[in-house]
């Protein structure tokens, strides 16, 4: 009985309670995150050793400069001016004083040190959350000294991944066609470089015309098209050994060979029986299989990352448009319906988007759309540009652009450009010569 009274009493007692106030934050700023990249500290002994081997006076500063440059180029980070730093590298290598970094408005801080151990380069680095005053990540790399640039790229990848939530794209290479000479007598060579333009190397001599190089999923092999005595040939090139192999001579016009996601097949288009279709070739047994079969011109095939679908362009509707089909050629669907002509579709490594080139009213556009054709967004417009290729994380596109005049105001010029998926951060990628047909590798350190 007593409990019943107590219960009723409890219900009747007026309690003064405040409901928890909730505020929805659905917007933020997309301005670059302020990051402080402290020069990596290095002891005198290591400095001397690296200077002997690499001719670099301060390897710590050199590596941090690579990280800084990568972060700046991404457009997502704002590396702060080193002159504003209150702490020296040797202090920062230990326990940073967060107040000092807070003072210069840094939200993240990268510190570390470089040492020479057993003829090898060892780099330790740490990423700090300045506002929370805690360490977010600490890693060490050991490698041969000549790999020092890659260490800078790997550090950037790790920092990028930790702060943005997606994998990086800095420890990668770009293969492209280096072009020289007048337009009527152009010399085209295969060239490969780091994504930041360094370590440029030529892979062919320029005797033959080369086109559309593409990396294999392992980055070990490259497939490309070359004209030998005016006949198109598809080649395989092993980057590390330099060995070249002819995959096959194909009749008529052959276009854009590309690897399947498992690296076992090459997909391409060539003309046979008066029509151009999509074919695959098994690299083990060299069996060629026809995938599409239509009287129209089907070209530029590209697999989805899971290998189940293929996107390509075709003029079967009367105008060149983008289509998607199953990997066996069935269930063909048109996905582009906008005005103008659509071509060179490339499936994003994330699988969510397809990049393309669009020609409309005399202007060329690089754009993206969802795999069902919705959400078309044109990222950049110019006089002539095409052949987009995705960064391995699906955030940046590299393509080439031709302009009517070069920097001297004469002739014409072709250069590589990159653009962020948001349409901002459009940048020219420096190359020693003119360049076209870029292809981005996957992460080398995967």
């Amino acid at each position, binding site marked *: 009985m007593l409990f019943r009274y107590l219960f009723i009493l409890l219900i009747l007692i007026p309690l003064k309670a405040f409901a928890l106030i909730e505020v929805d934050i659905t917007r933020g*700023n997309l301005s670059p995150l302020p990051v402080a990249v402290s020069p990596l500290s290095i002891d005198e002994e290591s400095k001397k050793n690296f200077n002997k081997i690499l001719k670099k006076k301060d390897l710590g500063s050199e590596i941090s400069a690579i990280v800084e440059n990568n972060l700046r180029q991404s457009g997502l980070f704002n590396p702060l001016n080193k002159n504003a730093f209150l702490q020296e590298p040797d202090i920062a290598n*230990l326990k940073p004083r967060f107040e000092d970094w807070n003072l210069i408005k840094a939200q993240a801080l990268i510190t570390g040190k470089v040492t020479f151990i057993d003829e090898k380069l060892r780099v330790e680095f740490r990423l700090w959350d300045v506002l929370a005053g805690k360490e977010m990540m600490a890693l060490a790399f050991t490698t041969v000294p000549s790999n020092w640039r890659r260490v800078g790229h790997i550090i950037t990848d790790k920092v990028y991944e930790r702060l943005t939530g997606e994998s990086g794209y800095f420890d990668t290479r770009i293969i492209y066609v280096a072009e020289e000479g007048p337009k009527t007598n152009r010399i085209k060579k295969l060239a490969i470089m780091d994504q930041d333009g360094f370590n440029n190397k030529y892979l062919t001599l320029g005797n033959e015309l080369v086109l559309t190089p593409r990396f294999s999923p392992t980055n070990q092999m490259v497939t490309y098209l070359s004209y030998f005595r005016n006949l198109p040939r598809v080649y395989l090139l092993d980057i590390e050994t330099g060995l070249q192999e002819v995959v096959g001579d194909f009749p008529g016009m052959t276009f854009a060979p590309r690897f399947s996601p498992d690296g076992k097949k090459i997909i391409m288009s060539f003309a046979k029986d008066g029509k151009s279709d999509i074919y695959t070739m098994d690299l083990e047994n060299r069996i060629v299989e026809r995938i599409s079969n239509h009287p129209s011109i089907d070209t530029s095939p590209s697999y989805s990352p899971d290998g189940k679908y293929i996107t390509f362009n075709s003029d079967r509707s009367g105008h060149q448009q983008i289509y998607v089909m199953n990997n066996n050629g069935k269930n063909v669907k048109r996905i582009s319906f906008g005005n103008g002509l659509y071509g060179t579709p490339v499936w994003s490594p994330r699988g969510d988007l397809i990049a393309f080139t669009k020609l409309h009213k005399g202007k060329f556009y690089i754009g993206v759309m969802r795999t069902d054709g919705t959400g078309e967004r044109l990222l950049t417009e110019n006089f002539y540009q095409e052949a987009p290729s995705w960064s391995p994380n699906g955030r940046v596109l590299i393509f080439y652009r031709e302009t009517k005049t070069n920097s001297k105001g004469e002739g014409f010029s072709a250069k590589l450009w990159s653009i962020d998926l948001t349409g901002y951060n459009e940048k020219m990628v420096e190359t020693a010569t003119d360049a076209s047909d870029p292809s981005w590798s996957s992460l080398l350190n*995967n």
Partner: protein
Amino acid sequence: MDRNIFISFGLHTLLVIITAMSLPFLSKKPIDLPPIVSVELIQITDKTNIPFAPKAKKTIEKIKEKEKKLVSEQAPPKIVKKEKQDAIPLPDENIKDIKEIKEEKQNPEKIDTEIKQVSEFEKKDLFDTNSIAALIDKSKVESAETDKKQDKITQDQNKSIDSGGLSLSEEDALKAQIFGCWSIPLGLPYNENLLVRIKLQLKPDGSIMKSEIIDHARMNKPGQGFYKVLAESALRAVKLCQPLRVPSTGYERWKELQLNFDAREMLEG
């Protein structure tokens, strides 16, 4: 006899199930080793205890001396007390230890922290905390005034105001402030749940006493690595923004506040 066999069989089966379930490492995939550059993980906890290098100490002292001079010219000594209250407790015990050691040394360390917050405290000295809200925008001034008027009318009305949420202008002011501080990580998968709820305990001046991620367990779930990145960005935003633009009155109402950070709208857009 039969019964004993059944019991024994049942218990053994249970044992096998428990053993199978408690061996998660069986389902883990082997880690791929990098082919060219070897990557070695450093134990974070070991390394965070590294003391300052002797060379570094000298530089720190130099900086402290410089800062000491600056502070003595600018800030009044009273501020030291306030500053202690405002200091956010750091989660890392090691960091706490280091802080304590610093305080034992001498004044400069205290003064040092003063420097970074001088501008904030100066603001407080210039303007009464009750009038901060009024500085946010004109609409806020109006709402603050109406609140005061209502307070004067009757106790019942006062209670109803107290127990309610923030007014539209109060909420807008707070939102606008946090929008500017929140750097959204752009790499988040926009087709996932991108909502982070943070519960805050605030001081009357809007500074943060305690912040807590409500769905903390999600951070360690497999495939939710992006959630950690998102949650950290939200915490950074809150810390960067403090003191928050809270109303000048009705502390009881908003001393606890929940902020729901949702990045989906921005990333989809």
